[in-house]
């Protein structure tokens, strides 16, 4: 294949496994999985600027030609493509699908995710015939089908995988780390962990239109500025993780094409430990929220590349929509902040420390610096702590940090999912260590709510609670800046924030 049909991608991350089920797989690993494996279903996409964005409300078949949901919402039937084969030429059957789904719910990490869609046990997957498989649910979980479209429930060549399974390792995780048993659009022709991956197109792929690029080379280049230079000089075709400053500069020099899409399922936040004084008082949290220099932060950290999540005007204390994340009614108002602080019994302020992780320093450092400066004005004395990534994870899990910034994404951006994952429970993802009975009730119910209007009402209430109690202050949704050679087209934003090579083309 020619250079023209080869796509050279540079990334700061690294692929560490070919198996999405591996514990500790990187985000780039997910991205690779997306391209080399198929799932039963996927989402449709819609145009956004120069690129596309996935449409969370519209699902379509991928390996399944079609699927139907029973009226009670408890049974989903998938009809598989009849002509699809794995890379080794063997046909893809319901057997493979069943084994793959069993694997997804049985492995620890993927299992937890699948559980959010009430997919918990292999008993739920039933082979109807060679090309039909049925999924049964005990409750009509609205996230059941979407969960079948995330990166975990990929369809593996079960015969091949089972050959490498052992008694201790029935799901062949060891072997699949470095080998693939797939039928996806691309196959891995060379894989050097942490350095580069070369993908070749699988010409017999049936689950979608044949991709344009015959070969994809993904290289790890840790220095962001070097990645920018590579794209600018035309040596590389695509990078999705450049620094905002480089993106602006490249754009200014008009050397490249920049597709900028707000990450609709992600948000940057400032989190409080709601179980630790003084942040156990919602008034203190609100005071901080009103003291934040949102606009300056947005400019300094992101060069305004993203969508703000502050500054909403709520008429009667309720949002207009139940979508989340959305703008919350906070904005910079130091007088109000001071008043709230006094009301909470801290008229003179207090001392605290604010943490962020080293890996996100490019955006977090300006946030921290501006926050420190601004909070000083209402008497809060902030010490900034830059924490290595591994340590940050532990500290957050153990709920030891009083005050920090993090960014988060939810693969399935429905309101109840957000509130379930990020606003309750004992996991690391409950950044605010938040406990709220009303919210717990609302989310538990909304999950199985089949009436859109009732769901909407519940969702609005959840959003309102987030604003009232402010366990975290939402800052913004950063934009994903995909920087590419001018002749590359078809970039799509996906929930996993990785590139789908299947939809890319090079125009002449």
């Amino acid at each position, binding site marked *: 294949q020619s250079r023209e049909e080869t796509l050279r991608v540079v990334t700061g991350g690294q692929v560490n496994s070919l198996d999405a089920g591996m514990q500790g797989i990187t985000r780039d690993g997910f991205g690779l999985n997306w391209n080399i494996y198929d799932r039963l279903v996927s989402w449709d996409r819609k145009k956004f600027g120069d690129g596309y964005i996935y449409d969370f409300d519209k699902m379509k078949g991928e390996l399944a030609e079609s699927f139907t949901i029973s009226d009670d919402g408890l049974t989903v039937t998938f009809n598989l493509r009849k002509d699809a084969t794995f890379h080794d030429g063997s046909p893809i059957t319901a057997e493979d699908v069943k084994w793959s789904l069993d694997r997804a719910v049985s492995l620890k990490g993927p299992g937890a995710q699948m559980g959010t869609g009430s997919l918990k046990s292999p008993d739920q997957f039933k082979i109807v015939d060679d090309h039909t498989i049925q999924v049964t649910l005990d409750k009509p979980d609205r996230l059941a089908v979407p969960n079948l479209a995330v990166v975990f429930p990929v369809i593996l060549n079960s015969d091949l995988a089972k050959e490498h399974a052992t008694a201790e390792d029935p799901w062949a995780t060891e072997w699949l780390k470095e080998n693939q048993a797939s039928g996806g659009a691309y196959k891995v022709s060379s894989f050097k962990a942490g350095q580069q991956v070369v993908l070749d197109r699988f010409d017999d792929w049936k689950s979608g239109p044949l991709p344009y690029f015959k070969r994809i080379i993904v290289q790890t280049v840790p220095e962001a*500025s070097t990645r920018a230079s590579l794209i600018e000089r035309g040596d590389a075709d695509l990078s999705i993780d450049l*620094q905002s400053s480089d993106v602006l*500069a490249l754009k200014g020099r008009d050397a490249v094409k920049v597709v900028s899409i707000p990450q609709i399922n992600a948000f940057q936040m400032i989190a409080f430990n709601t179980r630790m004084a003084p942040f156990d008082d919602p008034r203190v949290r609100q005071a901080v929220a009103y003291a934040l220099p949102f606009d300056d932060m947005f400019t300094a950290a992101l060069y305004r590349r993203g969508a703000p999540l502050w500054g909403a005007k709520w008429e009667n204390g309720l949002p207009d929509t139940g979508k989340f994340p959305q703008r919350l009614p906070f904005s910079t108002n130091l007088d109000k902040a001071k008043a709230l602080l006094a009301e909470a019994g801290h008229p003179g302020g207090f001392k605290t420390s604010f943490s962020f992780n080293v*890996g996100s*320093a490019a955006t977090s*450092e300006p946030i*921290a610096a501006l926050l420190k400066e601004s909070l000083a004005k209402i008497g809060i004395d902030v010490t*900034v702590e830059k*924490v290595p990534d591994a*340590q940050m994870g532990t500290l957050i899990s153990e709920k030891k940090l009083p005050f920090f910034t993090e960014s988060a994404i939810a693969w399935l951006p429905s309101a109840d999912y957000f509130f379930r994952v990020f606003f309750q429970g004992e996991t690391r993802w409950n950044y605010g260590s938040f406990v709220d009975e009303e919210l717990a009730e609302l989310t538990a119910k909304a999950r199985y709510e089949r009436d859109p209007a009732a769901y909407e009402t519940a969702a609005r209430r959840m959003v309102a609670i987030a604003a009232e109690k402010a366990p975290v202050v939402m800052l913004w949704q950063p934009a994903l800046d995909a920087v590419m050679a001018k002749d590359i087209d078809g970039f799509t934003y996906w929930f996993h924030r990785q590139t789908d090579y299947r939809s890319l083309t090079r125009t002449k």
Partner: protein
Amino acid sequence: MSTATLKHVGWVLRGNLVTAAAAAAALILVIIAIIGPAIAPHDPLASNVAIALTPPSADNWFGTDRLGRDIFSRVLVATRLDLGIAIAAVALSFAIGTAIGGAAGYLGGRFDKITGRMVDVVMAFPLFVLAMALVAALGNRVENVVYATAIINLPFYIRFARAEVNVRRELGWVEAARASGNGKMAVLFRFLLPNVMPAMMVQISLNLGWSILNAAGLSFIGLGVQPPTPEWGIMVAEGARFITTGYWWTVAFPGLALVATVLCFNLLGDGLRDMLDPRMRT
């Protein structure tokens, strides 16, 4: 220091312009470190996003950074911290290393053997990685950068002091000190170590530069000084990533400060070494 000694230093410096210049620069640096915060035209921490990333101008001589902070003021104010880190680290490893190394060199025997082994262990480490691991393990704070830098410098001081003391341990004046009723420790601390000092000065000044670089390297991978504290290493590490974006002033000025400082200490150390070389003394 007697006037005669001062005079001698004066002579020597006059004969070696590069060293003299380095010494003068070092003096200026120390002065800046002391009065820097007082003469900085702007508050080094005050941000003003409206003027972020403006090139050098009459108001902001070195331009502004991405938060609109005045780079000139930040570079000035950072002098104290950077020299502080370097001096503290070097002072620590010097004090401990000289004492241990001197004792090992003078006492010999088992103590010497054990310290020798420990030094071997530390030396066998890839030192920068050791520093990284230490800072990561002890906590990401300035003190820990100081400790880590001190620890990785330690073996050199121990070895050096040991060797220097070892060659002197049987000299007449050491024996004379013993005959005069000085115990081992007195001989070591009152006689031997003060004599090792001049040669140590060389090591110290070379090390000062190296410590600053070490701190900068740690900053580059995100370990060390906490923001928003101005520090050259962080400014350079952050600015270096802007090289291609055209905001050259964000890296150029802190970088120059860093390079000039390290250069100055290195040249000074180098000059000192020449001065102490008996061949160069007349």
